[in-house]
């Protein structure tokens, strides 16, 4: 299929979709704004913005503890949003969805409440070489504290996990395997089901970091079989300040609390405290109420389009963009996995990534430059940083044309 054919087969009416996102009609320095930093955070559709302001204007009340009607209603809406997340992820029950402030908090929760309880001296934790710092540092800290060993699944030059190495790393000392579903730098879609099956066979639990997958593809945690699946709302068109995770009830019930305080306890005396069942056990204090409601609205919005269609369209953006960039001399795409999400990590021989970002910005194009909170991945590929184009279903083929043109100009400038 060439690029003309790819465009033709597009499964999405992108102009209609773009009209839902007010920021996308913005101009930047007199040029149309091209937002390609969706891996960092996504823009919000009007439906989410409106739901948030309507809720705060008319329906805002605290949740779980009040028994006047305003509160009963906000609690109901809050729990409905939990059900929406459960359905979106294919979780068996809504009690297996815990709300947190984001992926970072979710992974820290697991590293603390599962890790500090079940990982001991001599035990092992496995991550991969292409993890975000959020899925690296908490495990480093845990292993250091416990005298456990952190093992790392290596990747091949295309950025794919080397599964034979994974097989060798797994032992009966492995307590947990924590890998992302999609790498935020390389776009690699990891074989999370296979990883889970093997880990379970070895007696280890599995955390899948879904920050970059949940917004872009249909996810079914029961099919994957994982014990934890973490996500951030702000990367899936929901407000900032909200995220969460799926956790298998059976596993969560064995875990101690993480953050402690109000609403996660059954009883507190000055001598002792009895903790509530999950998910309440892990939701201490007043939660991000409005943001949970906004997350529910974002899921409704995504469901209306359909995750399969979104995946298909973004895949066509990826194919289109890859083809364009491959034609540019002096440009290297870092990450060429066979199974890949719509992320293009770009390295130019002639220009420093930070210069690329600033120059692209002067053409109205927003990309992120840097190590993308994944320094070990940068080290693996021998580059200090990359410029990353990460796409969403509101991006257009024409925007990738503009990116390619701007990159050519930059290369010319700098050489």
């Amino acid at each position, binding site marked *: 299929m060439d690029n003309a054919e790819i465009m033709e087969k597009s499964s999405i009416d992108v102009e209609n979709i773009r009209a839902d996102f007010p920021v996308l009609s913005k101009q930047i320095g007199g040029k149309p704004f091209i937002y390609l930093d969706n891996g960092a955070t996504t823009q919000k559709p009007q439906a989410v913005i409106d739901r948030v302001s309507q809720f705060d204007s008319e329906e805002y009340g605290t949740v779980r503890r009040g028994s006047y009607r305003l*509160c*009963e209603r906000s*609690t109901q809406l809050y729990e409905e949003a939990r059900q929406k997340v459960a359905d979106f992820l294919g979780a068996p029950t809504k009690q297996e969805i815990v709300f947190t402030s984001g992926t970072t908090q979710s992974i820290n929760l697991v590293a603390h409440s599962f890790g500090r309880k079940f990982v001991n001296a001599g035990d092992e934790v496995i991550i991969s070489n292409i993890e975000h710092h959020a899925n690296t540092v908490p495990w480093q800290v845990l292993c250091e504290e416990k005298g456990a060993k952190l093992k790392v699944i290596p990747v091949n030059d295309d950025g794919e996990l080397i599964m034979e190495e994974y097989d060798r790393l797994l032992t009966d000392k492995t307590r947990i395997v924590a890998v992302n579903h999609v790498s935020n730098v390389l776009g690699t879609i990891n074989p999370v089901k296979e990883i889970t099956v093997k880990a379970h066979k070895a007696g280890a639990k599995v955390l899948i970091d879904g920050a970059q997958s949940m917004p872009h593809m249909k996810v079914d945690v029961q099919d994957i079989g994982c014990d934890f699946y973490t996500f951030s709302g702000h990367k899936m068109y929901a407000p900032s300040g909200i995220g969460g995770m799926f956790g298998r009830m059976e596993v969560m019930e064995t875990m101690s609390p993480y953050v402690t305080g109000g609403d996660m306890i*059954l*009883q507190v005396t000055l001598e002792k405290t009895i903790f*509530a069942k999950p998910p309440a056990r892990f939701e201490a204090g007043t939660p991000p109420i409005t943001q949970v409601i906004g997350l529910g609205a974002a899921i409704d919005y995504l469901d209306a389009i359909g995750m399969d269609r979104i995946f298909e369209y973004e895949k066509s953006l990826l194919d289109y963009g890859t083809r364009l960039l491959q034609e540019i001399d002096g440009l290297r795409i870092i990450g060429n996995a066979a199974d890949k999400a719509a992320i293009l990590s770009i390295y130019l021989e002639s220009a420093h990534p930070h210069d690329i970002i600033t120059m692209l910005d002067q053409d109205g194009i927003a990309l992120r430059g840097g190590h993308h909170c994944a320094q070990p991945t940068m080290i693996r590929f021998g580059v200090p940083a990359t410029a990353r184009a990460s796409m969403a279903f509101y991006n257009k083929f024409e925007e990738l044309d503009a990116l390619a043109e701007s990159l050519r100009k930059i290369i010319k400038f700098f050489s």
Partner: protein
Amino acid sequence: MSYDNELYQQVILDHNRKPKNFHELKNATHKCHGINPLCGDDITVYLDVDEATGVIQDISFTGSGCAISKASTSLMTTFLKGKKVDDSRVVFDEFHKMVLGEFDPEKQEHHLGKLTLFMGIREYPSRTKCASLAWHTMIGALDKKTDEVSTE
């Protein structure tokens, strides 16, 4: 919300003030302790069931709690006395669904009699447990599955 739905009607207040069958039953064939840790409601339900006929010959309760839980338990005892065990299970089911808002006695055939008084609690999901604690405890006693039920 119309006045009809208001929860605290005279009957409920009366039962709260002067609960019926509010005593221990020495010769109980069944008994169970029920608690609602969030509200602090704490009751024990006693039943005297005739094994041959399956008739609830006597029923009583002790304990403390909010007005809704006390009135609900009191009303339950007056309602069930003389009824068959099988019928009480049907009523439990209807009552339970009514307070959760899953069963509407105004639209569906029912066996709830004046227990429909508690319909207004649908608007207060956090308080449905106050109304249904009595019923869960009664069923717990009949099932003899457990000596204690908790709504948490």
